[in-house]
């Protein structure tokens, strides 16, 4: 595994993504998602909203790195708000 050049932060990142997917799978089994229409311009399932939330979070981080000088933790906080908003109202 040495060739993969693992670091603790990146390992934590992937573990979080894996836990998210496992959690979503369990949630789907317990209570299947129903496609619905929220603030987003198209009907979405829970998985769609997670994808949009994650993709948006990636762009929030990139935008922060490109435009702001403050610590990246602010981008993380913003991403969490974005993710919660998309999952609830998207």
């Amino acid at each position: 595994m040495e060739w993969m050049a693992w670091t603790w932060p990146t390992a934590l990142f992937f573990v979080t993504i894996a836990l998210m997917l496992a959690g979503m799978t369990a949630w789907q089994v317990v209570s299947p998602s129903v496609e619905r229409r929220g603030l987003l311009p198209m009907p979405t399932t829970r998985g769609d909203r997670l994808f949009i939330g994650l993709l948006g979070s990636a762009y929030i981080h990139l935008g922060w790195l490109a435009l702001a000088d403050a610590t990246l933790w602010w981008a993380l906080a913003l991403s969490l708000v974005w993710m919660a908003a998309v999952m609830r109202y998207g």
Partner: protein
Amino acid sequence: MDKPWNNRAWFLVIPVFVLVAFSAIIPLMTVVNYSVQDIFGPGQAFWVGTEWFEKVLHDERLHDALVRQILFSLAVLAIEIPLGILVALSMPADKGWRTSLVLVLLALPLLIPWNVVGTIWQIFGRADIGLGGAAIRALGIDYNYTGNPRDAWLTVLVMDVWHWTSLVALLCYAGLRAIPPAYYQAAKIDGASRWAVFRHIELPKMRGVLIIAVLLRFMDSFMIYTEPFVLTGGGPGNATTFLSQYLTRMAVGQFDLGVAAAFSLIYFLIVLLFSYVFYTFITTVGTGDRS
């Protein structure tokens, strides 16, 4: 009563999952790991955090390559999709020898390897020995794709159209042939015009194949490397240096693996966003779901 589905069928997905894991997921994880480190060799990596991302995001040449890439992909879609539909609509609908001949002719450019396509057009476009270049010069046009950025762009674009319009045409043709004759009969009874038949029968029925065509052509043109590399080498200057060529120069030419990894991830996110937007737009437009 039997269960309506059998969960053991999920085991059949395992081979594909393993294949994707080895060919995509593990390499992608490695790229993420590389993007936050300075890589000198196996076991020689130093944590740099988001430094490479900041460097890439503030790189003017990368911005220029990105703009060029977006313009190129949009031009490819704007030309190849309508042209492919037009070719498909013009193709014979029967099962005779003419159909077979047209299908074979259309498939020919798709069978040629990318580097060979680049070489063909490199020779074809030359004003001294190439048929295309000499013909354009004979018309009195000062054409030189190695020295003039506009000519280089035009040549790369025409080469891509020549190479890939067939794919769009073949996909659309398959979509058109799948339309039951009853639809055309109903349109004829209603006295529908040719345009109305296309707009209300053929175009909606081609939605599925058009999604595939647009996504394939977008992703492929957004990742174009070999043809412009062979044809123009990214020049003149940086006029036809697209993202993947810039990335390869960084990763292989300069061996800046960390920076190249950060760049790759941003590249990946751009392709992902565009593809998702295209896919969502095409699958929802006209279905009554779009606001």
